[in-house]
């Protein structure tokens, strides 16, 4: 497999929220490609369209214009259920506020996610602790979300996003609720996971220090990609 081939390609994407007088142009003719094995940071001020772009890349939102190609295939013909199937199989999400299931322990969360993705019960049972070990939580298998620190919660969420080995991981400000040291740990973990399994990781952030830890930084302002690009490597 050619690791340089982009896993995710956004071309000429525009998005308008609402219509008429209250219409908001959140994105305007955005072009972006994310390669396999690459960790990309999406930066920009509040309201610039980062979350909107992330949702479009994750097939949660349909662009008003333009196209999104995921793993080489066009997504526009898909209906809601088709987009959901696509997310389930190929995209993992990480959220700013973790969005764990408060009633499920770490290992149960992963088991449920794997079962949801179609894994048989016995294989899910074996895989769940393995995933938690990958994010250094082998000793927290049976902890409930309320018993975990912010960084630990986010690592459970990362393990959940990794369940079923999706090619694309998308995070919306995953470190915003964490202190700098913990946030850096999360970013380093994500970068390792991107490199070791040729996953494409896109992380939205407005913190330049966090963005520095990515392979590449893309800046967005007023719904457009800023011309200058840079990165850590």
């Amino acid at each position, binding site marked *: 497999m050619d690791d340089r081939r982009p896993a995710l390609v956004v071309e000429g994407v525009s998005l308008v929220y609402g219509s008429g007088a209250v219409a908001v142009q959140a994105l305007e003719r955005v072009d972006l490609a994310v390669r396999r094995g690459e960790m990309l940071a999406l930066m920009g001020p509040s309201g610039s369209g980062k979350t909107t772009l992330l949702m479009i890349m994750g097939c949660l939102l349909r662009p008003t214009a333009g196209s999104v190609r995921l793993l080489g295939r066009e997504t526009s*013909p898909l209906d809601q*259920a088709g987009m*959901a199937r696509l997310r389930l199989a190929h995209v993992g999400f990480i959220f700013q506020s973790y969005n764990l299931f408060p009633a499920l322990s770490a290992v149960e969360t992963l088991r449920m996610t794997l079962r949801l993705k179609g894994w048989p019960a016995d294989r899910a049972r074996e895989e769940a602790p393995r995933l938690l070990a990958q994010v250094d939580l082998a000793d927290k298998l049976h902890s409930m979300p309320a018993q975990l620190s912010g960084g630990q919660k986010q690592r459970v969420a990362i393990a959940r996003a990794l369940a079923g080995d999706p090619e694309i991981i998308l995070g919306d400000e995953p470190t915003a609720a964490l202190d700098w040291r913990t946030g850096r740990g999360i970013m380093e973990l994500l970068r390792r996971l991107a490199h070791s399994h040729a996953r494409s990781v896109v992380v939205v952030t407005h913190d330049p220090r966090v963005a520095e830890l990515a392979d590449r930084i893309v800046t967005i302002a007023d719904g457009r990609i800023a011309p200058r690009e840079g990165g850590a490597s």
Partner: protein
Amino acid sequence: MSAAIEVSSEAARPPEIGPAVLLAWRNLAYDRSRFVITMVGIVFAVVLTAVQIGLFFGFTATTTAVIQHTRADLWVAVHGLRNFEIAMPQLERHRNIVMEAPGVTRAEALLVFFSAWRKPEGGDESVLVVGFDPNSGIAGPWNIVQGDPADLRQANTVMVDDINKAKLGISKIGDRVEINGHRARVVGFTHGIRSFTTSPYVFATYRNAIDYGYLRDNQAEYVIARLAPGTDPMAVKRALHRRLPSVDLLTRDEFADLTKTYWMFTTGAGTAILVAAALGLVVGMVIVAQVLYATTVDHLTEFGTLRAMGAPQGFILRVILWQATIAALLGHGIGIVIAMAIARGSQYSTALIIIPPGLAVGLFAVTFLMCAGASLVSIRKAMTIDPAMVFQR
């Protein structure tokens, strides 16, 4: 047309029941106090409904107990009869006419009248004296737990039910009482023969009952008849009706229905019980609806997260329906056990509660529908949730 995205066959397969059940159960049990309220609501509704309907069945059985245990194929009474307890005396010659009808093998008189029972320690109670012919075995007390029915042939004797001991102010065989001022002696006890009218049944032979009622010989509230095997009771009724146009002729089942309908519906007693049962359901349903709705709404963000992750709508639907099913199963299980215990306890009370297996099964269906119905409002909310919500805060 561009090719559809390749989705692994594993991911395309609909998720099995497992994860939905796990999440449903955990969501339900997560908030302990709310879970307890849910259970109390369902258990309350199930117990109240089961006991009320059980009472209805019990009362229904009670109203017709004597009719069902009397081995008469045909009942003859003065025209206008509405129930077993309240009957008018009829002419002596009726018994002979019934006796002569083709197909009738035996006809005898049965006395049924209210009387005053004076307890040994003083004080009166109303009772219903049933005077039967001891020679045929057609009528008379059953389920005798103490005493010998042969003793009833002695003068001034009676048998009553042990459930009514306290009410009748007696405790043992040999206790002496007065019926309408006439002395009488208790020679035995039955168990479980209850009266719907609250006037206990007092069984005596026809002969003795005549004495207690100060009646003239050959009086009868009922003429009860046995038919030869294979005889059509309707044919006998038709034949008899020509000879006795002014009486009511009823088969056992017709008489049981008449009495049951009178006490349960004409008096409104049964309707009141059924209304109470329905109220129990409504109250339970309101509690359960509130709590199941709150449970779903509290976990709305999680359903949004699941949708964002790509869980199909059907998965969310299953989680919510499983919440309802688990709540129904547990609540119904506990409720029925409590109701059964109450029914068991009623064996020794004047109000019998009967909970047949069919009622328990039927109530589960009702409980499940109640829980699923209570979830309906929240199902729409959870299924149509926009997964984008989890990004926008």
